């Protein structure tokens, strides 16, 4: 039972990390309508920056802050140079363009940061464990990630659903010309939002850095997961992204924890060993397919009517 609790907590923590990633994606992709494959690259950059700046400053917090800033700046430059030209383009062309960006960022990161994976230690005050319940020992850093992620989730929800900036953003994303005609500086707004999305993605990278090896290609590993989360949640829905991220995090973790064991009941050892990991990898995609078949527009769809709207 305590094991299950711990696994569930692991799942939540992974979910929160996924949420941070997909929150930025939901903003940029769900609301602004940009399919940005390079979103994962910003996550990677955030992690690289975190390692670099922590090395320079000697402090994880300072390094993380600087890394966040740097990722946001990269986001701003990226928006001005590349993304701006993609706003009014079909999704497919955005895919092509941002695929090019992935290649660029991966190669660039390798040139700048070197081919070897980098590693970042969590700050000393977070490198221990806490006993949550008798028998449930949990790494403090993971707990911190959980808290940071939930805070970011709350902030995002408030920003998009409750503030005027969020309203303007949704308005401009739906109909840029019309928003402009009502006095919205959509260029600036989009720039700000893209930078925010970049920042969130960078934050995810920064938080993940002490857990993972920072290396080229780490962005693509999570990109798909983030897209899965956004789509399951309902495109453009922050709430949906949160629920879906937690769902996927828990599903993935529990799948890895219990599926192979369950399979061993059914099959001989080697078969179960081979099929288990494959099946648990498949699990989230299977979940997505099921969700989309049952609810084609995700868990929290934004409703639409097409027979009278222009």
């Amino acid at each position, binding site marked *: 039972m*305590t*094991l299950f609790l*711990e*696994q569930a907590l*692991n799942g939540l*923590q*992974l979910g929160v990390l996924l949420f941070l990633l997909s929150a930025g994606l939901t903003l940029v992709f769900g609301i602004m309508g940009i399919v940005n494959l390079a979103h994962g690259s910003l996550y990677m950059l955030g992690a690289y920056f975190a390692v670099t700046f922590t090395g320079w400053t000697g402090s994880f917090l300072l390094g993380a802050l600087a890394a966040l800033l740097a990722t946001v700046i990269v986001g701003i430059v990226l928006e001005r140079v590349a993304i701006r030209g993609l706003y009014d383009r079909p999704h497919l062309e955005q895919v092509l363009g941002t695929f090019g960006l992935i290649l660029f960022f*991966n*190669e660039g990161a*390798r040139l700048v940061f*070197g*081919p*070897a*994976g*980098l*590693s970042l*230690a*969590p700050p000393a005050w977070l*490198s*221990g*464990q806490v006993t949550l319940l008798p028998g449930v*020992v949990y*790494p403090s*850093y*993971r707990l911190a990630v959980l808290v940071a992620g939930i805070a970011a989730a709350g902030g995002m929800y408030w920003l998009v659903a409750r503030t005027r900036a969020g309203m303007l953003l949704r308005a401009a994303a739906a109909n840029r010309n019309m928003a402009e005609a009502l006095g919205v500086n959509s260029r600036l707004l989009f720039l700000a939002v893209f930078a925010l999305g970049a920042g969130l993605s960078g934050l995810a990278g920064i938080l*993940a850095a*002490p*857990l*993972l*090896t920072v*290396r*080229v*290609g*780490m962005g693509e*590993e*999570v990109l798909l997961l983030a897209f899965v989360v956004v789509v399951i949640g309902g495109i453009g829905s922050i709430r949906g992204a949160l629920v879906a991220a937690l769902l996927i995090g828990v599903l993935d*973790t*529990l799948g*890895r*924890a219990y599926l*192979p064991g369950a399979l061993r009941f059914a099959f001989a*050892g080697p078969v179960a*060993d*081979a099929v*288990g*990991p*494959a099946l*648990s*990898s498949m699990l989230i995609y299977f979940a997505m397919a099921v969700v989309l078949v049952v609810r084609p527009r995700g868990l929290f769809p934004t409703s639409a009517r097409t027979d009278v709207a222009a």
Partner: protein
Amino acid sequence: TRERGEGVRIGFVTTLTGGSAAIGADMRDAFELALDHIGREMGGRPVTVVYEDDGQNPDTGLQKTERLVQRDGVHFVTGYIWSNVLLASYRAGIDGGAFVISANAGPSELAGVQCTPNFFSTSWQNDQTPMAMAEVMNRRNLTNVYVLAPNYAAGRNMAAGFKRTFKGTIAAEEYTQWPDQLDFAAELAKIRAANPSAVWFFFPGNYGTQFFKQYAQAGLLGQIPLYSTFSIDALNLGQIGELVAGSQLTQHWGADLPVAANKRFVDGFRAKYGRTPSFYAAQSYDSAMLIKSAVDATRGNLEDRDALRAALERANFESVRGTFRFGRNHYPVQDFHLFEVVRASDGAYSLKLGERIFAAHADPYVGDCPIAQQAAR
């Protein structure tokens, strides 16, 4: 129709992009160093090397191999980090008329029934190193060990090798997603719950780093001893040295092996690149030396392939691991040693040579290989 000009042409397929590019870079650097050491000459002929990136992808590896043998007309193809890339590519290399010499990947397939005359390995067969580790653990009377490896061929080979030799009980076996498992939290929780007397695992390169970090963060490091294979190397020691200090591993080579050729290699590598070479680099260096020994033996005659093959089989060169010979299946028969992670006075971490675990150890598949050893000429 492959004779084009004077030189000896060598293709080198390795991973130069993506998450594992560091391994490829280490291998390339070592190969270049070897060429420096031999004056870029073999059997009186100049040597040219074409490096190709496989992107850790079997299809790409195959295509690059194809390109090397068909476009560049290379006489030897070497490199190959990954078993699956090697398996995808070696036929193309051999069919294209080249000798294929793996400098790292050591799949069991090519060691047993499918062994083939024009393929050689300067590394090891996957099973061997974990077998040595299991032997160490046997000697310490460890039982109830948790086994962990990624779910791909090398991972399964390694686990198989470990289990073949290990005599104690196995608490549980776990195979993780490959290559994109982000997080080991679920596995770590299971380990904690199982509370084994030790954990043996294999996670290469960055994955090893990641596992050690998370193991430490989970507070398991001091509690359950870790025995690993191919998970700590010169490439990640700088990152995780602190976490793994005192930890032990088995290997066929170490930078401090007291062999003249090794000293030349390690000193040369440090001087040229300012870092300690990894075992990947050592194998790569050896592969250059092996090729040179064969071309020298035929006095630069690249046409007499039987003679070349025979010379390769003799392995008449000074390996960085000391004595080196090939088994019937063209995999090395070599010693395996215990190493320990130690902290030097300058604060850097390194691997310190310990006792010898296996002497002249041959892989367990060699018996299945139908190649008859040619009489030494």
